[in-house]
């Protein structure tokens, strides 16, 4: 009998790296909103059709909430289908890009990296 290994399934959650979570906390403190959570969503527009948005705010109605590295991430239901599997990372240093979305659903991404199409 032979067994075949199934390809790894795409993770359907959204995650944040520890470094990105640390930077969110620093930014929240500087903005005077240390008690707010991170809301990650998608809106129409940008060169490729869909644009990522990051806000420091509480959960909206129907949001899915994920807790990681001591940070709560809220994702609106309609945005979730475009973000499932995304890892939010932070690219620091002189050549860094800041917050970076590594989104497996993105077929194309615009030059600045904030817009994508699926």
């Amino acid at each position, binding site marked *: 009998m032979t067994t075949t290994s199934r390809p790894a399934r795409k993770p359907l959650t959204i995650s944040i790296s520890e470094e990105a979570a640390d930077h969110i906390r620093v930014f929240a403190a500087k903005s005077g909103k240390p008690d707010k959570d991170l809301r990650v*969503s998608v*809106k*129409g*527009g*940008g060169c*490729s059709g*869909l644009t990522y948005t990051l806000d420091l705010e509480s959960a909206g109605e129907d949001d899915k909430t994920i807790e990681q590295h001591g940070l709560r991430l809220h994702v609106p239901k309609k945005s979730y289908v475009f973000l499932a599997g995304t890892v939010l990372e932070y690219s620091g240093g002189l050549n860094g890009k800041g917050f970076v979305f590594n989104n497996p659903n993105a077929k*194309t991404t*615009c030059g600045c990296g904030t*817009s994508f199409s699926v």
Partner: protein
Amino acid sequence: MALSRLAPQLDQYRALTEGLAVVDRPNVGLLRVEGKDSVDLLDRLSTNDLAALAPGLGASTVLTTNKGRVIDLPTVVHMGDYLLVLCSKDAAARVSEWIDFYTFAEDVVVSDVTDQYSIAGIAGPLALATAQRLTGATAADLPPYGVVEADVAGVKAIVVRTDFLGTGTLDFIVAGSDGQAMRDALAGDAEFVGPEALEAVRIERGIPAFASELNEDHNPLEAGLIDSISFNKGCYIGQEVVARLNTYDKVQRRLAVLNWPTGPVSAKSVSIGDDVNGDGKVIGAITSVAAHPSGGFVGLAYVRRAYENAEVAIGPAGAIAALKPPDTGA
């Protein structure tokens, strides 16, 4: 309008180019876009800068795919508590779905209201002055793509300067049941003009139409829609491609007007899709053809830029036609 009331083609042509013409506008679709985020969303989805739209003002803007190809060329007018989007009737469902798809958390609701209205257009050098007289509006009230609401001979009309046939042409949008009354009110000293003469003038002026010239095979710069594009507004869908084409001068083809005389090779010998040949090679393809009311034929074609002012051979029989860039001045 009754076809029996139409004058000979040449008279219709003169009304469109030298006087005042009333035309049916059956190819226009109407979308009502409501909600506080409507302007912001449409600004993010299309080429022109809509951010400053205020009641009474409007803009021509292009919906493009993320590859910078044309979906449609709507006119968006601000009606105060909603936006009225005049699009191509055959594109109305696509435009509506496109806006809907990109509506996430925004307060935006789109509805297709095409069937609720009847639209008559007026064109010709006297059109703008006639619209001002009928509506009581001043020239300042009707800038390009501006809108006024007025009673015209007892009929409530939304009057939009859509410039559908070049500068100073307007659409009168009325309730469906008022369509004939509005046409009668507009008739006055005007000539009713049918679709053939209208199409000839559209082609002669190089005005692109949905499907034949405006489609996902072409970008807005090829179609000559640069006036409907803002290059400093920021991102919109397709912006990266459109900006690159413009910045690096990478537009390969342009829409051009062809005309050729009546002769052994008639319009029937030249069809949409036929090759345009220059220097013995294919340099483009025909997208529209019409008999010209004053004789001969006119056509539109996307051709390589080097040939914009050349003499070319068209169709299987190789009729010789002159090419020139579009001129949309009334």
